[in-house]
């Protein structure tokens, strides 16, 4: 087990380095001189010089990379060109906002997806299973940003029960029903694809387990159905946890589309703005942090999976 852990950690560190290289390299993928891209042509020389010094564009590439990496380790992700504020602070704030919708979405997806998948598997072949399967596959085929628009149309325009966009005045965790109402649609939209993925995965895993002999053996021993279900789910847990982790990462990193639809000031929207404003430090920082998050989530998922699935421990 310790060997497995050590190997996994080493692997993660290597990947993180690779990620940082890619994030750093983004800016150099832009055609043209980075400085020209960052600043309009009529920028004052002092600003140009300041930026050149801060980024060190005249020094060789690996030196720039190392300098940047050093700054990152100290928590300094640079300064936004557009707003002048520190990237780190902006990013943390935006990330917090994203988590406000991502976490409930993940919980909803996990709960609903597992339930639907299990119900479908236990009713294999019957109409209920077919219905759920159709819903699941529909969930995977629908662009979630479009679904968001449709939900807005239905609930905000036609029925006018929920707000169409924005985060409300809370600027953080919701403290009232009013604040909560801003959450409903974005969370529902975000959770749609994970529900589909998890539901499908749970269904096929449970089906596979049911195809083994031991549930029958359990029932023959006299266990009540409820307990059999519990045992089956315990066996279905490891691959499901793995998929869940992936979906969580997706929720964090891929929320940009939903945040655009709902004008939610999260990390996705931050990235979107950064792209259009050519605000490279913000873009670099966001990409780096989100990807790093994803990698770490995968690591945690792997560890949890190894803990609960005795077969995986070497």
């Amino acid at each position, binding site marked *: 087990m310790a060997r497995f852990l050590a190997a996994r950690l080493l*692997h993660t560190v*290597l*990947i*993180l380095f*690779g*990620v940082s*290289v*890619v994030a750093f390299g*983004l*800016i150099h*993928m*832009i*055609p043209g001189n980075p400085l020209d891209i960052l600043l309009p042509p009529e920028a004052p020389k002092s600003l140009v010089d300041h930026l050149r010094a801060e980024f060190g564009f005249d020094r060789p590439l690996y030196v720039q990379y190392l300098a940047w990496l050093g700054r990152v380790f100290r928590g300094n992700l640079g300064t936004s060109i557009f707003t002048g504020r520190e990237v780190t602070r902006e990013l943390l704030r935006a990330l917090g906002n994203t988590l406000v919708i991502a976490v409930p979405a993940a919980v909803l997806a996990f709960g609903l997806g597992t339930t639907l998948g299990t119900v479908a598997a236990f009713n294999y072949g019957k109409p209920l299973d077919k219905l759920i399967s159709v819903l699941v*596959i*529909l969930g*995977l*085929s*629908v*662009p979630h*940003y*479009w*679904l968001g*628009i*449709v939900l*807005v*149309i239905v609930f905000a*325009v*036609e029925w006018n029960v929920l707000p169409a966009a924005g985060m409300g005045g809370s600027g953080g965790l919701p403290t009232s029903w009013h604040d909560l109402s801003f959450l409903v649609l974005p969370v529902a939209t975000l959770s749609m694809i994970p529900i589909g993925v998890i539901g499908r995965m749970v269904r096929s895993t449970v089906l596979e387990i049911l195809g083994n002999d031991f549930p029958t053996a359990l029932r023959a021993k006299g266990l009540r159905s409820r307990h059999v279900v519990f045992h089956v789910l315990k066996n279905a847990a490891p691959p499901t946890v793995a998929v869940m982790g992936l979906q969580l*990462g*997706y929720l*964090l*990193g*891929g929320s*940009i*589309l939903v945040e*655009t*639809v709902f004008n939610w000031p999260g990390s996705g929207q931050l*990235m*979107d703005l*950064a*792209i*259009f404003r050519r605000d490279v430090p913000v*873009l670099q920082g966001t*990409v780096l942090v*989100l*990807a790093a998050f*994803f*990698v770490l989530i*995968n690591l945690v998922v792997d560890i949890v999976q190894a803990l609960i699935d005795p077969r995986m421990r070497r």
Partner: protein
Amino acid sequence: MADIAAVQRIAAPEVAEGIAPRGYWRTVAGRVRRDRLTVTAGAILLAIVLLAIFAPWAATHDPLQGDILHRLEPVGTPGHLLGTDETGRDIWSRLVYGGRLSLFCGLSPVLLATIIGGVLGLLAGMGGRLLNSLIMRICDVFYAFPSVLLAIAICGVIGAGIANTILSLTVVFIPPLVRVTESLTRQVRSRDFVEAARASAAPLHAIIRHQILPNVLGGMLVYATSLVGISIILSAGLSFLGLGVTPPAAEWGLMLNALRQAIFVEPTVAALPGVAIVITSLCFNLLSDGLRSAMDVKLPS
């Protein structure tokens, strides 16, 4: 054991005559044909593709010209069956022409990624530990980015446009295809008949071509078709954000974005491009699922 010697050498009991040999793909095709859902999905898909190809004949108006006086007409308006968009262009015609771009941007990355990813995966699967590690670790790095993030980041950096969209999506799809191909290759490689082929001193390229490849392609195909649905959604999403196709071209994602303001005025019209995406993506997913179940069960059935 005298009984062994006593048994005559009998020719093998014979397979019944008249039954045609069933190859693997014939069997798969037969099972797909019997699956009504998959066949329906395939038929709808075919219709969409044909509409896109024959867009100039299927469309009723010029997709790029609009009459601003007749903007945002609802569905069912005579002359404009599906209404008009925010600058007065006919929605039906734009949907039909948009199909070209959306399908193209959806299919090309998967095709390219399958070829590139397939070759890399094959190399990684067949090669020694060093080559395998090299290829797989690099893939892991790209895998570390959530696909949406990666696509948007690349497009955001290299700019908008069709070519860039295809490029960024190809980059996004290569790592999973490499993984799938590598895993399949390693599985096939360890099977007995491959060892038998090695034992017969056959050259490596012959072994890859005759033993490995035919057994890997099936799995690759299933996975690739499952990616098409996602690709269409992603490429439309890129255009939705303004990172993909540029206006005034007709493309479903672009249309969705442009019509966003219209949801307060003419919600049905605003939602239409999304419906096109949903139907197309759904059909691809159903097709992929059908293909997978047809290929899944161990022969003979």
